[in-house]
């Protein structure tokens, strides 16, 4: 079984360059239904009008971090089931443990390759990216 290429993905990062890179990488993997937000607060506002299948978020953002966004998404019954991948430079073990406890589905350390991203998508959805 393969991943649904039309699934709705929300990418969250405060660096426009990173959003652009992620969008291009996801496009290369066949995912074109990609939306973006520049921090956790903006991402939560997006959730008010739209449902997403997957959130790919950075950690270190102002005014709301990716970790705070993760907790907010998991705390809301309507969004709690959304898959959540953290892509971040925060590589302290305590961060990974805290994110795992908060319900993150996977965790990618920057810099990363398309293959790492593909592997994580497959691991999170238990399906192959065609």
């Amino acid at each position: 079984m393969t991943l649904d290429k039309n699934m709705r993905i929300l990418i969250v990062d405060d660096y426009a360059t990173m959003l652009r890179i992620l969008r291009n990488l996801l496009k290369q993997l066949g995912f074109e239904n990609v939306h973006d937000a520049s921090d956790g607060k903006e991402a939560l506002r997006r959730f008010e009008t739209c449902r997403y299948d997957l959130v790919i978020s950075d950690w270190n953002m102002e005014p709301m971090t990716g970790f705070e966004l993760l907790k907010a998404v998991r705390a809301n019954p309507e969004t709690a089931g959304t898959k959540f991948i953290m892509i971040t430079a925060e590589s302290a073990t305590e961060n990974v443990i805290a994110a795992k406890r908060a319900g993150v589905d996977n965790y990618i350390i920057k810099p990363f390759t398309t293959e790492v991203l593909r592997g994580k998508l497959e691991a999170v959805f238990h399906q192959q990216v065609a």
Partner: protein
Amino acid sequence: MSVATASDGAPFAQQAELDSNADNAIPLREVISMAEKVTAALKPLVRSLDKAMYRELKDMLDSIEALRGDLSKVDPDDIFSRRIPEMGRELSAIVSATEVATNSIMNIAEQVLAADKSDPAAYGALVEQHMMAIFEACTFQDLTGQRVTRVIQTIEVIEERIEVLCRMIENNQITPTASKVSDTEKRNRARLVKGPANQGEGISQDAIDSMF
């Protein structure tokens, strides 16, 4: 001006004169002579006290002069009005240059990806042309390298001056008060924000993979 008096209220000189008339009185001449002897005996002590005090004051003055000399080496005006703002400008320029270069390279990559591949010769020429543009965009590295070198030099100057301050603190046995944690630092600690780890530090992707 008040006149010195004896315990019964009469001035001393008057009292001595009265006492000289009494049978057991000490003559005034002897009192004066004794006073002169006591004063003469105390002179060396007073002189030695003067010398010790002078030496103490001289040492204090020397210390203050040395401290003033060290402080002039720190030159806080130079640090705060010139070097730190200059460092900020250099770092901003580095961020801008890398951003411009990254955007240029990404524009080129997007154009190549979106290009029509039906005519291999035309596509090959376009790719070649775009590859040259990528090389041009990469020239930012030379400029940012030079800017980073200047920032490092400024940090070294500041480091030297902080060292002077540290020596002053050590030599003068000043107990430093606990360093204050800024509000941003407190907030970042609470939000588990540390930033990128240095090479060899932090958890690896493989270790993270084994946790999921």
